[in-house]
């Protein structure tokens, strides 16, 4: 039996780009990136359970330029995924669907993630940990 072409819904490309769909995509991307962070966390723990030379090489890796960049990214990804996740939990409970509420919570999630990332790295810098 020849396969019939099934009707398709309009592709994402025809819709106007908005804050809502941007943050939805960002939620997925940060989720994937945090899954990689879970592998890094596991590596850190395994190195810590080993001898001090294993831990020293793990520390060197995390303190390399690429390591710092990844840690900075994981900090932002963590706070964004956390705040936007809470936003999703409110929706699941049936609250915050109105247009204004949606937009306000969207900007709160992005802005909050930037502020918290800045706060954490600011504290690290303030206490001379960088």
């Amino acid at each position, binding site marked *: 039996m020849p396969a019939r072409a099934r009707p398709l819904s309009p592709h994402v490309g025809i819709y106007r780009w908005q804050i809502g769909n941007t943050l939805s995509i960002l939620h*997925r991307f940060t989720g994937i990136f945090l899954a990689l962070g*879970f*592998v890094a966390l*596991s590596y850190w*723990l*395994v190195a*810590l*359970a080993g001898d001090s030379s294993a*831990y020293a090489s793990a520390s060197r890796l995390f303190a390399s330029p690429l390591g710092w960049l990844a840690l900075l990214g994981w900090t932002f990804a963590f706070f964004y995924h956390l705040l936007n996740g809470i936003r999703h*939990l409110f929706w699941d409970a049936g609250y915050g669907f109105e247009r204004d509420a949606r937009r306000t919570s969207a900007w709160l999630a992005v802005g909050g993630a930037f502020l918290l990332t800045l706060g954490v790295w600011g504290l690290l810098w303030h206490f001379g940990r960088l």
Partner: protein
Amino acid sequence: MSLRSPLGRARGLGSAKAGTAHWWGQRVSAVALIPLCLWFVFSLLLLPNLDYDTARAWLHWPVSGFLAMLLVAVVAHHSYLGTTVIVEDYVHDEGYKLLGLLSLKFLHVLVAGAAIFAILRIAFGN
């Protein structure tokens, strides 16, 4: 009365009857991760430094070791559920989809197992 066609049923199309449990598990693990992740991030920030001895002493303390173990287990579950949805959404070839889903399951168990074993080694070591 079922609205599914006999052909659709024979091909295994339609609901796998596990969607609600998956959706619910994602939310429950998300709620559990809010306090666990915040505890982890702020505990690390509050340590005077992340030297070998300092970090080990922190995880040697029963409360930290226990919470770290819970964190790893719940993160693994949440991450597995999330990445599974991504593979199901974008990989449409049955063979690659199965390969992707199985790889995700094996990798998550492997990474979580290694992390939990490491925490136990530190917690019960000297």
